[in-house]
């Protein structure tokens, strides 16, 4: 379903850009991911600051990227993921943040922020909104039924070992991968013991071959369809975004299914990502944009959003407002051991980007 939303969101974004009128003194225009904020957050912001919020959503980085690169998006705050963000900075999309207007910056977790040094040193252009991981969502009962109790739930072998994927698919348990070169080739390299961020074409080829060896067992490559299919039982192992898998788990529970959905961060390493709040260079309401970012950095607000969307926030001061259930869930706040194996996807040169897309396309279409 993703791309349809993407398409309509693109049209909406472009028409919005065209209609974007002159700045309002008491307005801020926010463009954020869908289902990514608590229901009362925006009201509280308006109550506290008197600034009205125009809130639009997208469901893929690509849509936001196209809107930003076309220029004059009309938004004051946007929230791209790290690997799109770096390239956008280079293209001159964002303006430097005024730290004087962001007193809540001190709340950020310094250990976590160290991961962002190569992305945006000293928060010059951005402040992380939420963060998460990409791992494996699985149907606990089905997988154990087929592979036994010692199923390698904490390993990419669940998706990359032909023996395992063969056994799963033969038993009628559907498998899926995200339709993204970045999101799948890097884990494949990690599984092979290579640097998941390698820009060496041979490494990328090796990852492609690994995926090609299990390709026929995949039901599909898609970046959002697995959410409902995991919940329905149509798919039983899926590479996925942490929050999406949690959503599938919640849906399966609501529907009273006779199975449950688990999420694991594979031990070989997995992607750690951040969504970054940033202000476009041509934002009509710069000051209000800062007010909004500072508001999100408020520990109570950050905690409230995390409780609702089940994504971790980078705000160490927010921990005391979080429920134990969330704070102690290793799928949301991974243990330090697991954290050490996570990698942050960085921007790649055009030829590497193209090589990855090309290899990915070849693997996917089985040529």
């Amino acid at each position, binding site marked *: 379903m993703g*791309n349809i939303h993407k398409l309509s969101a693109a049209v909406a974004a472009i028409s919005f850009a065209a209609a974007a009128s002159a700045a309002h003194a008491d307005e801020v225009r926010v463009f954020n991911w869908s289902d990514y904020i608590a229901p009362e957050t925006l009201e509280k912001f308006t109550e506290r600051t008197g600034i009205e919020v125009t809130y639009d959503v997208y469901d893929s980085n690509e849509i936001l990227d196209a809107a930003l690169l076309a220029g004059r998006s009309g938004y004051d705050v946007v929230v791209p993921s790290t690997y799109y963000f770096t390239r956008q900075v280079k*293209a001159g*999309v964002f303006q430097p943040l005024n730290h004087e207007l962001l007193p809540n910056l001190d709340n950020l977790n310094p250990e976590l922020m160290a991961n962002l040094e190569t992305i945006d040193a000293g928060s010059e252009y951005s402040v992380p909104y939420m963060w998460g991981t990409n791992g494996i969502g699985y149907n606990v009962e089905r997988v154990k039924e087929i592979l036994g109790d010692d199923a390698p739930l904490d390993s990419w072998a669940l998706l990359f070992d032909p023996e395992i994927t063969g056994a799963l698919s033969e038993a009628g348990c559907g498998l899926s991968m995200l339709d993204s070169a970045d999101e799948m080739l890097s884990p494949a390299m990690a599984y092979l013991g290579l640097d998941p961020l390698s820009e060496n074409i041979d490494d990328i080829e090796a990852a492609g071959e690994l995926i090609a060896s299990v390709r026929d067992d995949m039901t599909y490559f898609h970046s959002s369809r697995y959410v409902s299919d995991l919940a329905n039982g149509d798919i039983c192992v899926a590479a996925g975004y942490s929050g999406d898998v949690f959503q599938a788990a919640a849906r399966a529970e609501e529907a009273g299914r006779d199975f449950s959905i688990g999420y694991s961060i594979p031990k070989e390493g997995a992607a750690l990502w951040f969504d970054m709040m940033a202000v476009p260079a041509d934002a009509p309401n710069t000051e209000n944009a800062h007010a909004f970012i500072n508001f999100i950095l408020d520990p109570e607000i950050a905690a409230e959003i995390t409780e609702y969307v089940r994504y971790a926030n980078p705000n160490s001061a927010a921990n005391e407002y979080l429920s134990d259930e969330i704070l102690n869930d290793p799928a949301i706040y991974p243990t330090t051991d697991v954290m050490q194996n996570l990698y942050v996807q960085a921007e790649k040169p055009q030829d590497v980007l193209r090589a990855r897309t090309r290899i990915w396309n070849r693997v996917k279409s089985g*040529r």
Partner: protein
Amino acid sequence: MKPSRSSALLKRLKLGRRAVIAFPLVWLTLFFLLPFALVLKISLSEAAIAIPPYGPLLEYADQTLHVFLNLGNYLFLLSDSLYIAAYWGSVKTAFIATVACLLIGYPMAYAMARAPARWQLLLLLLVMLPSWTSFLIRVYVWMGILSNSGLINNLLIGIGLIDSPLRMMNTQFAVTIGIVYAYLPFMVLPLYAHLTRMDNSLLEAAADLGSRKINTFIKVTLPLSMGGIIAGSMLVFIPAVGEFVIPELLGGPDTLMIGKVLWEEFFLNRDWPVASALAMVMLLLLLVPIVWFHRYQSKELAS
């Protein structure tokens, strides 16, 4: 009538004619030619990390006007078999879907045209009515019908015909079904229009001369409805080649179609120039059948 008045009338007529021509002309210029020129321009520029993400075609510096025409994007399309395979996949899928539409649509249109006049309006409505619901919803419904836990599989398992679900979703088969279903009305309507206009006395004459029904159909009805067959086939084939939504929703890993590849160039590689070059080539590819159809039509009009 005085000469002066008639010339004034002539003038007004000319003005009116011009206005009538001007409207579609302005429309086409604004909504076809201009976007086309923009895409052509981007396809000749170079990708850049900037806003917008491509370089300029003209640059004025040191009293010299520099013109940059980058043909590299087009050459690049030849360097990787992916693009040719994707074009081929699209044309193949569209062709199969067009033939299927014709095979299903012709009997439908024929039956409609032969039905009693009071039924025809109702039948026509039945063909068009489904398109009153959103296209997207109708494609989603097919997901519900074809999926492993969908209507067909549940039914077949329920009556004990099969044990494990047939895999129909996420295959080329599902894509073809989706396209045939979505575009069938575009085949039926022009065929119906041609078939109802057909002169019944020709069929009577054939019967009087002892021609059998099959023979009459092949020698009279079919040639006379050729215009409808071609028009319907164009209306199905052309949009099906560029189809993006149906393969995206119903297709599987082996569905390789140009719409999706174009999307990837634009959004994943963020290479607007190559994406534009892909679109230009697709347009050229589609021009061939359009020009052919146009020539057929003018020949038919002439005769």
